[in-house]
């Protein structure tokens, strides 16, 4: 027990002195403390109004407050239900590492390190910052490969890192047993801090900038009027405000649910254990590197001469499913049995610790999200309600950078980098079920340290949204992936194949579905395939007058004033000309439009349209995603199948490209047939009211038999669209990419009557020239059988210099080569962005760095199809649509 008490004291936050909220003694040793003392109110009563109210005084909340204050905001109030940093922050392990799965996350961590390093100087508060570096260990070649991939990504960001040999590991950290290691990644920039002290320092710095901090004040709910945040109700009275930031960590879900207008914050807590030891007989140096042994599922850092070591076990214990009153975060029980595998892994890694004495086993609950990424940004439907939570146990690493991005978001309306993978709008209400979250986080937590190979899928929380054809496809051998809760077929395993082997295709090399997908692609090219694409987001916009057209003309870069029945591919751009959405719009009638967007745009696109929609009762937007099943008939024989089923000629003469007609298919009437396929291949999309779905599918399959029809999945689709150079929103395109940068100027109508969003920015860019360009890279000299496959995030080199990064890749069965899509963004010698011209791109020798190995590549600005014989037919068929996901 003695050990327990003393270690809690050691970890406890340095209590914020009373003077934070009242003018008392002046702590002379703190810089900047004088300023806020004079401005502070006399009593600790809450102010009646503020501009921003932040809920949560952990590392994230204080970071947001700090960055807002730095951006010049005043009247910021930070509320904490207990003491500052008394939640997860207080107990967390204090490792700040840039080794994160996404580049934007690494970027945030990199910023956090820089921030924490200068905090001590800025505030005078000791933060325990030590740039100890870290070692990510690899026990097998696959792990080493993933570390090499990480290393190449980090090089793009300019973070220094080295892949080293086991004996170098022993040199850097003598306690480590290296006999089972094959290598490691050394990140010299990684650091350790004392989290409560960093928290305290951020609070002190924020207070110095005028942020008012109130402890022991809990937020009951947020008052929303007409879709805007107006006030925050606390247990000590209400505060009027314009902005509210939910940084409530574990409790963010409940806080979101507490208001009259519910905010879905999909996260769930899990218990997380780490061990503290007493000092070793020969104390561990403060600056010995952090160890991350993902194969052993553990991490370890030096701690007061001993070791702090925790891990992410295979069988996590979810907690707080029922809510906050179940257990106080302070009274968490330790569970030694549960910790046993991690203890064994630790002793295997550092056998010398065997004789080291236990100080304490700490249980520090962490919150996890359904996809292992944090939740950031403005919530859909409520203006001024921001969220920054769900750190997946990297809260300390992310807090600095994420706080900065969120502060920019609140200030400018968007952050300074693309954070779509972290945007809370990637989730909707459908991810808000407690059962779903509980099950999913049990998979997410172990996944943190699991080897992540290309195209892995979540196994839990599946089969939530399915097409009516799900069972039919499943019995025909469909293997499924999930997007936004929707099950989509990846490929179809032919009868007689070894199913077990196929499900274990975890590899960085050629996967075992290679031939299966190849056959599907071949069928799309030569006969006809059917792909169920029901997961797409589908909206209908209607109005009594021409309001719908006006709205779309304002939102879309392309001209929507087309004859009824025409389909327009268009981007919805923001003020900067970047893609907020990339969609196909069908003009169903004069005043009604059918908008087809990528699957994960359901929440984002809805809130984007709603945000710009005038409140006109005659203008109506409806989400009809659930009403239609979408079948994509791809291939030269698609028209034969359809005409046989409808007794209508479907040849291009009678049914031109990018055209939509309601017609009958089989017995079913009112099927929206569209001549587009999202792949560049000939064919049709059928939008079928769901009750007809099975009928139409059965008819198509039976009639199609003689044309050699077969099912195909998204992997085939992806291969097709990438070899046709179709960019895909969310993967290749983001809100920082303009149509000019990806060769889609032809879809921007500068001369249409309406001044559309982003027009000015695009005009400016047209004059100045683009400084980054979307290209297609065809790998040469890449042995599909033996070499590591590209995925995304690989650095691109031009004439030996780093010039860009890939965003997606696929094997092209037609070219029999790998095709990578990516952006080139060259810089001048002084580091400023340089203009990209076609000439610049064509004159250069390119290489793509896959896990440290460089492969020569040919850069292209236009797809191959336009170079070949079909060119003529494709001319008007250039529907560079894209939103099928990878």
């Amino acid at each position: 027990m003695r050990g327990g008490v003393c270690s809690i004291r050691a970890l406890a936050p340095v209590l914020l002195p009373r003077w934070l909220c009242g003018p008392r003694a002046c702590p002379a040793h703190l810089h900047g403390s004088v300023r806020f003392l004079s401005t502070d109110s006399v009593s600790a009563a809450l102010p009646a109004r503020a501009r921003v109210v932040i809920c949560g005084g952990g590392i994230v909340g204080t970071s947001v407050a700090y960055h807002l204050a730095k951006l010049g905001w005043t009247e910021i109030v930070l509320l904490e239900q207990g003491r500052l940093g008394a939640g997860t922050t207080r107990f967390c392990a204090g490792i700040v590492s840039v080794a994160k799965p996404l580049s934007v996350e690494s970027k945030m961590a990199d910023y956090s390190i820089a921030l924490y390093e200068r905090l001590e100087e800025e505030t005078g508060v000791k933060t325990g910052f030590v740039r100890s570096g870290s070692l990510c260990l690899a026990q097998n070649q696959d792990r080493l490969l993933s570390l090499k991939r990480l290393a190449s990504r980090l090089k793009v960001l300019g973070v220094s890192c080295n892949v080293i040999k086991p004996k170098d590991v022993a040199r850097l950290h003598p306690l480590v047993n290296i006999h089972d290691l094959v290598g490691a990644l050394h990140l010299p920039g990684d650091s350790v801090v004392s989290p409560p002290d960093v928290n305290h320092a951020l609070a002190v710095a924020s207070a110095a900038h005028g942020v008012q901090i109130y402890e022991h004040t809990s937020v009951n709910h947020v008052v929303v009027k007409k879709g805007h945040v107006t006030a925050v109700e606390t247990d000590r009275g209400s505060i009027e405000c314009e902005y509210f930031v939910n940084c409530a960590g574990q409790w963010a879900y409940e806080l979101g649910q507490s208001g009259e207008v519910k905010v879905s914050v999909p996260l769930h807590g899990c218990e997380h254990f780490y061990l503290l030891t007493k000092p070793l007989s020969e104390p561990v140096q403060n600056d010995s590197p952090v160890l991350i042994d993902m194969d052993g599922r553990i991490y370890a850092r030096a701690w007061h001469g001993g070791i702090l070591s925790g891990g992410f076990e295979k069988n996590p214990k979810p907690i707080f499913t029922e809510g906050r009153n179940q257990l106080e975060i302070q009274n968490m029980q330790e569970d030694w049995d549960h910790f046993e595998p991690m203890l064994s892994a630790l002793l295997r890694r550092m056998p010398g610790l065997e004789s080291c004495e236990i100080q304490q086993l700490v249980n520090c609950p962490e919150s996890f999200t359904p996809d292992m990424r944090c939740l950031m940004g403005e919530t859909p439907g409520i203006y001024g309600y921001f969220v920054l939570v769900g750190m997946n146990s990297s809260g300390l690493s992310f807090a600095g950078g994420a706080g900065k991005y969120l502060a920019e978001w609140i200030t400018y309306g968007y952050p300074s980098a693309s954070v779509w993978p972290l945007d809370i709008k990637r989730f909707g209400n459908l991810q808000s079920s407690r059962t779903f979250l509980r099950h999913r986080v049990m998979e997410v937590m172990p996944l943190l340290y699991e080897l992540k190979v290309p195209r892995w899928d979540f196994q839990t929380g599946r089969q939530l949204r399915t097409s009516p054809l799900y069972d039919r496809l499943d019995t025909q051998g469909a293997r499924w992936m999930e997007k936004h809760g929707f099950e989509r077929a990846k490929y179809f395993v032919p009868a007689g194949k070894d199913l077990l082997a196929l499900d274990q295709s975890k590899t960085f090399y050629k996967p075992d579905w290679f031939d299966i997908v190849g056959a599907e692609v071949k069928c799309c090219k030569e006969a006809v395939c059917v792909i169920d694409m029901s997961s797409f987001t589908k909206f209908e916009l209607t109005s009594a007058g021409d309001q719908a057209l006006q709205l779309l003309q304002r939102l879309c870069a392309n001209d929507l004033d087309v004859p009824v029945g025409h389909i327009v591919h268009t981007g919805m751009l923001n003020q900067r000309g970047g893609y907020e959405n990339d969609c196909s719009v069908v003009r169903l009638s004069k005043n009604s439009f059918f908008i087809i967007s990528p699957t994960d745009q359901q929440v984002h696109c809805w809130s984007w349209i709603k945000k710009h929609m005038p409140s006109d009762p005659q203008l109506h937007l409806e989400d009809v995603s659930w009403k239609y099943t979408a079948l994509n008939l791809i291939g030269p024989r698609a028209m034969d199948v359809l005409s046989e089923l409808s007794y209508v000629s479907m040849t291009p003469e009678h049914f031109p490209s990018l055209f939509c007609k309601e017609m009958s298919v089989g017995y079913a009437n009112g099927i929206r047939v569209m001549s587009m396929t999202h792949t560049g291949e000939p064919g049709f999309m059928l939008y079928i009211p769901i009750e007809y779905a099975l009928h139409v599918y059965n008819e198509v399959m039976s009639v199609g038999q003689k044309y050699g029809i077969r099912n195909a999945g998204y992997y085939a689709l992806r291969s097709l669209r990438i070899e046709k150079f179709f960019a895909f929103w969310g993967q290749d395109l983001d809100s920082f990419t303009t149509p000019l940068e990806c060769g889609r100027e032809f879809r921007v109508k500068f001369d249409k009557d309406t001044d559309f969003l982003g027009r000015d920015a695009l005009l400016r860019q047209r004059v100045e020239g683009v400084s980054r360009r979307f290209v297609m890279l065809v790998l040469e000299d890449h042995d599909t059988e033996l070499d590591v496959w590209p995925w995304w995030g690989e650095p691109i080199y031009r004439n030996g210099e780093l010039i860009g990064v890939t965003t997606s890749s696929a094997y092209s069965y037609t070219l029999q080569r790998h095709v990578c899509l990516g952006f080139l963004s060259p810089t001048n010698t002084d580091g400023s962005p340089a203009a990209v011209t076609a000439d610049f791109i064509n004159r250069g020798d390119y290489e793509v760095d896959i896990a440290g190995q460089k492969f020569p590549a040919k850069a292209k600005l236009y797809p191959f199809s336009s170079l070949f014989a079909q060119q003529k037919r494709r001319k008007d068929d250039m529907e560079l649509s894209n939103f099928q996901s990878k």
Partner: protein
Amino acid sequence: MAATFQVFRVIHGRRFGRILVPAMTCQNCSQSPRPCISATQPHSFEQRWRHQVRGYRTSPAWHSYYLTPPQINSILKANEYNFKVPEFDGKNLSSVMGFDSNQLPANAPIEDRRSAATCLQTRGMLYGVFDGHAGCACAQALSERLFYYIAVSLLPHETLMDLENAVESGRPLHPILQWHKHRNDYFSKEASRLYFSSLRTYWQELLDLSVPGEQPDVAEALLSAFKRLDNDISLEAQVGDPNAFLHYWVLRVAFSGATACVAHIDGNELHVANTGDGRAVLGVQEPEVKRVRSEHPLSEAKTVVKQDRLLGLLIPFRAFGDVKFKWSIELQRCVLESGPDQLHENEHAKFIPPNYHTPPYLTAEPEVTRHHLRPQDRFLVLGSDGLWETLHRQEVVRIVGEHLTGVTLGQMQGLLQERKARISSTFEDQNAATHLIRNAVGSNEFGMVDHERLSKMLSLPEELARMYRDDITIIIVQFNPHGNNKW
């Protein structure tokens, strides 16, 4: 210190039916008490360490043959029973998920009894473990009767009224209890009429005493039911019965004895009523010895509790039956002489304890402990025996982690891995009670289940078995961690 106390009792041969000739005890136990020690040892870190320091070893001196694992399983599982409670009763989450129970006889016939039932007219479940001594009669009677007494005491006035009216008018009664019985748990048919009339007298008195609209307090109800039943047992023996068999039966019940450990769980409220030395793990221990001494004159201070036994003879200080320690000598003689002939040959019944001056020395009044269930309360073990010490793996390790500073990582790992290996034997036992018995009987000095040892313990000849182990009866009630968090 519970563990030490337990060991002490084992050594002194408490397992001989509680009433015994001390000389014989020592003799038997001096031969080989050691195996028993580890049998009842908790597998905690602390205990293991102490063990090794003392250098205890098992001494497999006696001749025996080995049982195969299936044979062992069939012996261990012969009496196992488990019951799952539906999670929702329609309105609320049930606080109990289910229970496992099991018995392992050492006496032939076994003197332990167990009961489990759901109260149908009030909410709540009842679990009881009854450890008989000097025969099984008293324990058997308790297992049949006690829950009815408790259930009736818990009924509000109105329901009692309905009950009485139904009996009066010959209408069928709504059942009061739903029993959860193993096929080996039997009820005696012969005495049911007698039992029923006693019960009816009790509720009639309750009717007079209770006020309409008042909800009986559980603790008081338990207290009242216990005392009343003991009283009824005593009275029935004094009054006798025209039926010779029944007369003999009631006397056997009264002259034998039994301890009772009963748990009542209703929502988040757990009550444990304990008479004697059976225990529930969530129960609270009280210095029993002090209480007994304080209730008798100072002059007897030396004789009342001798060698840690009541009047030097009886181990439990509270018990049902055992009229020998309750009635005056005159009454005992009078009842015995008028009783059936079979009783005359019973040496035990005629034996008057030495130093028997101020009866009663024994009471059936239970200690009632009330406990508010928390989410961390995962289960409750009722045992006739010192078994609860072997229980919760988590608990034991947690205590090790918290209280033993100076444990090294290596030691902790060794302990955890050893326990992990042991846990794997849980897969053999679906029933937690069986698993506990397996560990209790078969653990070696390292706290591991040792097949050889288990085999020897289970294949002891009938007359020897009692020296190495007592009857074991266990009920493990599992709580619903989700049912207990709505306070």
